[in-house]
């Protein structure tokens, strides 16, 4: 590997990106756009959850609690039911996604200072929404309890849900870190997926492979500018996440960026590999979307918890780098995880990157066909 060649290639690539409005837009506008679209779309999706109420207590306390739920805007009470069999009917048919059952001794427990129970049944088919809904329920119950404290008794409502690591109970806190990981997985591969294909299509590759340049020099030279860009994208995404979506960053920002570099190395190398194999820009961009988009969204644990997936899908998730990155970003953002806790995930990302980089080097041939 010769420094002079790598430098020449990196510089050329950077000039080309800089001069092409389309690639500039793809590089800098697309990640931001995706973050806003999905950041809001997925967040808003959790509003107006259809809810039924089964109130056995029928006291002013229970009515007050129900009112808190509907005032929050997250829950739309569509029905008060009198028969517990109706709960299944509503949930099974999908007419309601949540049922709140208030036991007959609810207000009595409050007055006697015992912990009153609140039973909540959630349609778990969309576990992401379910998790977020549980968060809201827990928050509203908490608020209600605090209000009771202001009077004189201090019972705690136990809705049998605990939402860890997200005490503010904002769904975005959950979504954004995972969303950043998923978007970066898609963007990284897309960024580099055109570089080799473009040169084959334009005929410039034929000139390039007639020179003494080595495959690894070419691949490294092409990786460098996209690495810088990926790094900037990542920083912008983190800024938008913390400032605009107001997600707390509990962990260390330097750790976050260092780990992101490891991830970028793998993601960008994957794009290079796709570009080398595809040889045409259209095929390459489609391949990179197919390989990264749905798997990153669906199988990374971002939308659906991996533990709830069928066994075969659980196995597949292991080869999806976004899986590790989602876990890492959630960890650093929400738990303030330190490297020691993330070491395994980071190591696996590194291994993924090294494998893909090696395969890309082996697949690249300095031959016209």
């Amino acid at each position: 590997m010769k420094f002079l060649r790598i430098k020449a290639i990196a510089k050329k690539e950077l000039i080309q990106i800089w001069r092409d409005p389309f690639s500039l837009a793809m590089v800098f506008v697309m990640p931001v756009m995706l973050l806003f679209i999905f950041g809001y779309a997925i967040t808003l999706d959790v509003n107006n959850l259809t809810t039924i109420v089964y109130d056995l207590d029928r006291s002013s306390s229970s009515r007050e609690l129900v009112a808190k739920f509907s005032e929050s805007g997250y829950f739309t009470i569509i029905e008060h039911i009198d028969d517990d069999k109706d709960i299944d009917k509503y949930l099974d048919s999908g007419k309601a996604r949540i049922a709140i059952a208030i036991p007959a001794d609810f207000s009595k427990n409050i007055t006697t200072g015992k912990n009153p129970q609140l039973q909540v049944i959630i349609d778990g088919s969309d576990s992401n929404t379910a998790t977020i809904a549980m968060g809201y329920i827990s928050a509203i119950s908490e608020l209600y309890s605090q209000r009771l404290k202001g009077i004189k008794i201090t019972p705690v409502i136990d809705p049998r849900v605990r939402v860890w690591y997200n005490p503010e109970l904002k769904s975005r806190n959950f979504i954004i870190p995972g969303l950043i990981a998923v978007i970066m997985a898609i963007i990284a591969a897309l960024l580099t997926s055109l570089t080799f294909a473009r040169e084959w299509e334009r005929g410039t590759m034929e000139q390039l492979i007639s020179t003494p340049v080595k495959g690894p020099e070419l691949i490294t030279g092409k990786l460098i500018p996209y690495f810088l860009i990926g790094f900037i994208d990542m920083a912008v995404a983190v800024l938008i996440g913390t400032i605009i979506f107001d997600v707390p960053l509990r962990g260390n920002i330097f750790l976050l960026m260092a780990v992101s570099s490891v991830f970028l190395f793998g993601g960008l190398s994957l794009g290079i590999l796709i570009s080398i194999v595809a040889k045409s820009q259209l095929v390459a961009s489609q391949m990179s979307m197919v390989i990264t988009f749905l798997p990153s969204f669906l199988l990374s644990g971002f939308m659906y918890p991996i533990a709830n997936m069928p066994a075969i899908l659980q196995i597949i998730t292991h080869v999806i780098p976004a899986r590790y990155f989602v876990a890492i970003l959630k960890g650093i953002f929400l738990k303030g995880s330190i490297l020691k806790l993330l070491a395994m995930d980071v190591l696996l990302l590194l291994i993924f990157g090294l494998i893909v980089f090696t395969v890309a080097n082996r697949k690249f041939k300095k031959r016209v066909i």
Partner: protein
Amino acid sequence: MKANNIAVKVEGVSRKFGDFVAVDNISLSVNKGEIFGFLGPNGAGKSTTIRMLCGLLTPTSGSGFVGGYDIIKEYEEIKKDIGYMSQKFSLYDDLTVEENIDFFSGVYRVPKEKKKKRMEWVLEMAGLNERRNAITKILPGGFKQRLALGCAILHEPPIIFLDEPTSGVDPISRRNFWKLIYDMSREGTTVFVTTHYMEEAEYCDRLALIYRGKIIAEGTPNDLKQNYMSRDVLEIDVDRVVEAMEVLYRNGIETAIFGSLLHATVENAEQEIPGIKRILEGLNITVNKIEKIIPSLEDVFVTLIEVA
């Protein structure tokens, strides 16, 4: 055996694409410092051959060396010693003239102390001094071609391969380009150049004619004219060219159109001129001129292809 004054030598080289034989068992050798012309119509196998010589394509069979390196085993080594200009313009359209030169200097690892000098040399040679900051895309064809040549020889390779370097360029630029090739050859560079312009072949020291993947003739331009043309060529100037062609064809005389003139190949000019005149004038076609000429390479080529 590889002789010291030979730059390129291949033997029995073939290349198939599936069942199709694009290059069929060709052998050729190029001396150091000469301009070797590789002539043939479109699809004859010129680019395929040149790619095999530059280490870009593996021959299906055959052997050879370029600049002392084996074309089968050492094809990566070859790349240090050659400059290659592909048929399709293959510099970066979206880079400026200087940026392109700068990029290829880096790729060829032109030493720092030489880099500036080489850059100026290319700009001068290509006549691009004033347009050094122009985006390559907007340059006229002739400039692009000279810039591409410059970028391919930044590292001063002893052998250069040019694949139809002048196709699609205006005649003045073509002449300028050939002057550059001629200058380089005088300084000792070996030039392997393909073309389908017959008149360009006259500039070459030696030629090989390739047709449907096979080499059908080889030698200096004069050799070709003498050895391969046992028959005479007549140039005929008539007022109704197409009719004249038809009537001669019916009388068993093949002709080809050269500009507004007809060329006919015959066994013996003196004997046949009166007969041809009679046939044409019998149809009231005015014959302004009919005479024996020295055959051009194109005549040679047309004749050879008829035989092949």
